[in-house]
């Protein structure tokens, strides 16, 4: 199982803040997971595509080539605006 989190505008757009799912077969990178999530439908495709987005794996920023493994926590969020 992996845990997937969504924050801020992305959380509102996908309509959930958190979900748990089995790491899909053949998905070994952040980019592959993102493609699977976008394939869920138009809302997901729009939320996770197009606009600038950051991804963290186990609470560290990751590129789309970043590796995924069972048990990971993956978070999707817009560019940060703190400070």
């Amino acid at each position, binding site marked *: 199982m992996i845990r997937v989190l969504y924050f801020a*505008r992305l959380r509102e757009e996908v309509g959930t803040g958190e979900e748990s799912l089995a790491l899909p077969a053949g998905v070994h990178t952040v980019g592959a997971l993102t493609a699977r999530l976008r394939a869920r439908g138009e809302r997901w495709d729009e939320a996770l595509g197009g606009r600038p987005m950051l991804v963290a794996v186990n609470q560290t*920023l990751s590129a789309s080539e970043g590796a995924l493994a069972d048990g990971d926590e993956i*978070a999707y969020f817009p560019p940060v*605006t703190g400070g």
Partner: protein
Amino acid sequence: MAGCIRVQTEAFDPGVELDALARGDAGAGALVSFIGRVRDDGAHAPVLRLTLEHYPGMTEKALGAIVEQARARWELRDVVVIHRVGAMEPGEPIVLVAVASAHRAAAFAACEFIIDRLKTRAPFWKRERTSQGDRWVEARAGDAQAAERWERDAGLHRE
């Protein structure tokens, strides 16, 4: 020593924090601080309230990493980073970054480095409430440029 990092819903008093910074450390002659306040930039309807969302766990980890990078780059005697989350009013402090060093050049550089990286790497998101409704604040291109500068200057700022 990672310095003191706090992520909290409560308001804080920058003066109290600065007074405590490197207190009793006779070698800490230079203190530089950055305070960010809830701002109304005049570009939209007046901001009535600001709400800060964050990613609990990653926030502290990201801030800890940024402070460690600063400590590796400059000789610092104390560091404090405080960031509020939740709801706050215009004019209230959102963030404090305060750095103590023996020399002011290191204190200025480290303080600016920490806030520049925080602005692009720490998972906080601002939502503004105005009389015309709520909106997510958009990231500024200038913030990414400010953060990139520290990559370019990696050799120059080591002291």
